[in-house]
């Protein structure tokens, strides 16, 4: 079970991630996107999911990642990610609900390059009973 005190709180990701051109290019190639000057719309999941896993499985929240299923995902892209961005990721646990033993956790991730908000991602993480 999630620590109930974590609902409503914001946790800062420990790392900042410097985005390389090669990772933008590799990600775009999977989808057949030839223009690599900016990242494709779902690229930020590479940053936010990694940071989320670290935050949500940490001692303060306490999710068992082996039982996690990705329920839904939303991206609000303020500007596209480009090579050279140094992104930090904060996670806010917005809502929590328990249904038939499954936990539904809505998390907002804010990705910033310095003070600039680049992308806001929401996801529902389902921890199966």
């Amino acid at each position, binding site marked *: 079970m999630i620590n109930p005190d974590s609902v409503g709180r914001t946790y800062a990701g420990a790392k900042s991630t410097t985005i390389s051109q090669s*990772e933008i290019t*590799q*990600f775009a*190639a*999977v*989808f*057949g*996107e030839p*223009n690599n000057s*900016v*990242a*494709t*719309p*779902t690229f930020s*999941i*590479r940053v936010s*999911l*990694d940071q989320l896993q670290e935050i949500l499985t940490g001692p303060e929240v306490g999710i068992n990642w082996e039982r996690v*299923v*990705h*329920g*839904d*995902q*939303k*991206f*609000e*892209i303020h500007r*596209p990610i480009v090579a050279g961005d140094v992104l930090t990721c904060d996670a806010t646990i917005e809502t929590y609900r328990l249904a038939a033993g499954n936990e539904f956790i809505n998390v907002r991730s804010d990705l910033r390059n310095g003070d600039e908000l680049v992308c806001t991602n*929401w996801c529902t993480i389902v921890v199966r009973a």
Partner: protein
Amino acid sequence: MQERIFKIDRELLKRYADASGDQNPIHQDEAFAKSVGLTNVIAHGMLTMGLVGQFVSDWAGGSSNVKEFSARFTKPVVVPANTSVELVVNGVATEENGLFRLELTATVDGVKVLGMAKALVKK
């Protein structure tokens, strides 16, 4: 919008795992997938969503024009070995304050694999 078909096979799953960093074995290892109750290896939900994202970017004239994109993962896409499955993507565009609201569909064998798939784009 005009319907488009994306092929998903095990090689694409491996490429997406490497590009995204999501190396969960349910997307690559058949024995592991079956051990956790799946019928076979399944595609990453974010791979399916990313393919629909490509459909959106191409319609909008590039990734830079995509402002919002969301979907629910309603049904896993099962990907057997040595073959590919067809992801059929389509959508309806409605103009809204100078932007376009897209209502998207993504199906495999006639079954919806994403729910409430939507995007907001500039064009």
